[in-house]
């Protein structure tokens, strides 16, 4: 593929509001996970909650979009001068030439969960104030962001469970390549809700403590929330020093099971292979892998087999989900931005909350931070339905 410039980016999760705070937490190996006190949830689990989401106000003219998910999007858009950079891109390319591609798994479903508690006792009707399109529907967050940024190009929500916002980069890349647009706001937004907290609990996939990716005693995920955005453009012939590019994308399907990964990680391996091929790189060209690393026994086992099979056992790897939690549909974009921060700062982030690496998982898992120049990072995102996507970012073609 032709590389794309990550012209501007921002990330908000429980480890930091904005890129600088996120980097600082990674440098300090700080986790944002805490015992679950979200809403009325009564579960023995840990969550990664972004502080200040409920206090965030949407602009007056977009009040119909008001819900936790869009408040999180709004809070994140305001960081790192991102909104200004998008307005500048719209000015430069034209509003019609900038698209919006956002991954989400549950969008504003919390709003519907709350509305179901307020059904009319006689008719069963939802409250009149409940707005389906601008809050519940998967498109709501993409629609909110395009209106907030006053963009008029193609806009879509990508909803492939936990691979959603990685795959959003693929949709944007194809539309830029086809010259339907010149720039794209790409990212992911997913926020805490009862559906995912109780849902993963029902599948016995969530841990009671903070999640411990690749630990011998790992026992499930911690659910987090995040919003992360990038402004993508065609890479110029001469790239400024310090710029980070999107170099490759690979996608695949497992064809195996709705909620369990392929046991040998065949789909995951295929996605990583496709990403390397699209970047014109070999396995040896990757300096660090940001793993999907959810901390369920089967996910980490399957991913380690896929990674070891393709890269061998020498490439440094870690999962940042011990710090951020699993931010589901936002994970692909959040971890793409963490990978960009890794390249820009020469940081291989050590996995937080992992004490004893599972000896059965034959990969080089980093527990401690390492500082070293990094040229290329591969980031994995895999989801329910067997949806897989790997991204490669780097400092040069």
């Amino acid at each position, binding site marked *: 593929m032709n590389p794309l410039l990550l012209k501007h980016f921002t990330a908000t999760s429980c480890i930091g509001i904005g890129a600088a705070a996120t980097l600082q937490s990674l440098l300090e190996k700080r986790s944002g996970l805490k015992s679950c006190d979200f809403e009325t949830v009564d579960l023995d689990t840990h969550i990664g909650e972004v502080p200040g989401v409920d206090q965030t106000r949407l602009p007056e003219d977009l009040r119909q979009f008001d819900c936790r998910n869009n408040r999180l999007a709004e809070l994140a858009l305001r960081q790192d001068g991102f909104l200004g950079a998008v307005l500048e891109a719209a000015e430069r390319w034209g509003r019609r030439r900038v698209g919006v591609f956002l991954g989400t798994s549950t969008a504003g479903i919390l709003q519907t969960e709350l509305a179901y508690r307020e059904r009319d006792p006689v008719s069963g009707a939802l409250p009149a104030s409940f707005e389906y399109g601008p809050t519940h529907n998967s498109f709501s967050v993409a629609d909110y962001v395009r209106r907030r940024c006053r963009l*008029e190009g193609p806009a879509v929500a990508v909803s492939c469970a936990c691979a959603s916002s990685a795959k959003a980069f693929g949709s944007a890349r194809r539309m830029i390549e086809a010259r339907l647009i010149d720039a794209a706001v790409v990212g992911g937004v997913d926020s805490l809700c009862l559906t995912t907290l109780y849902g993963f609990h029902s599948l016995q996939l969530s841990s009671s403590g903070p999640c411990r990716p690749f630990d011998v005693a790992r026992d499930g995920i911690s659910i987090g929330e995040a919003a992360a955005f990038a402004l993508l453009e065609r890479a110029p012939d001469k790239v400024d020093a310090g710029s980070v590019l999107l170099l490759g994308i690979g996608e695949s399907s497992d064809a195996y099971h709705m909620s369990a990964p392929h046991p040998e990680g065949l789909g995951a391996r295929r996605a990583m292979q496709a990403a390397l091929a699209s970047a014109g790189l070999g396995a040896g060209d990757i300096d660090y892998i940001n793993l999907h690393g959810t901390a369920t026994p089967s996910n980490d086992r399957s991913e380690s087999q896929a990674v070891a099979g393709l890269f061998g056992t020498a490439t440094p790897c870690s999962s940042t989900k011990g710090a951020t939690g699993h931010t589901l549909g936002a994970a692909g974009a959040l971890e793409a931005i963490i990978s960009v921060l890794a390249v820009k700062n020469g940081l291989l982030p050590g996995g937080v909350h992992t004490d004893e690496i599972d000896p059965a998982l034959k990969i080089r898992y980093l527990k401690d931070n390492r500082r070293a120049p990094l040229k290329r990072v591969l980031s994995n995102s895999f989801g329910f339905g067997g949806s897989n996507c790997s991204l490669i970012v780097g400092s040069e073609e």
Partner: protein
Amino acid sequence: MSLSAYISGLGVLGPGLTNWPQAAAVLSGTETYRAAASVLPTPTILPSAERRRVGRTVKLALAVALEASSQSGEDPAALASVFTSSGADGHNCHELCQALSLAGREISPTRFANSVHNAAAGYWSIGTGAMAPSNVLCAFDASFAAGLLEAMTQVAVDQVPVLLVAYDSEYPEPLHAKRPIPDAFGAALLLTPLRHHSSVAKLEAALSDLKFERLTDPALEGLRSAFPAARALPLLRSLAMRTQGTVILEYLDVSRVQVRVDPCV
């Protein structure tokens, strides 16, 4: 880059529409439209355990996907796919929200796994063995045109055949009052970069500012406006009529998608 592709397979299922040949007869005016509830076939491509777990939306998506992919002789396992839907499984969503509103909040793990927007794509991959990429989109009422743009750019940029599957089905009450989709409607298009023995037309797509088309028959226009996936009907009518011309499809509030149709003779 011109955004072009050949349509090499079609599938349709909806109220009063049972498959593409019958829908084509209705759309071209050789058969009278008779309203009737959509009949969704059992998805025989799924293993029996999975077959019992799927709801109406998955049955709908798999039915039109199978019809469109079977005409070309392409192996469905090798096909990249784009699934696009405004709302996925409304009954499943209702059951989850209902359970979460009650004390105890006991929810079914199968319902939770099926609640993902990409459930139909996941079952398609399991049923056909397809390990090729599958993207799953939502753009509310603009979902069909958004899916068409995604599929056309995949064909043009990656030069691979892509199966586009657009589908929507109803929510039960109380969500139905907020999102009144009346029944189930799906349309699938197999788009190929090269002309195929089964190709019916060449398409060329672009963004447009022109007014989108409605259908003159009030019953068919009723379908078009009731189901986001049925926003495809003006394009399907043009394919059924086998006439050359340009169709303007409804998309976002600020733009439309224009499709030039050149029938293969």
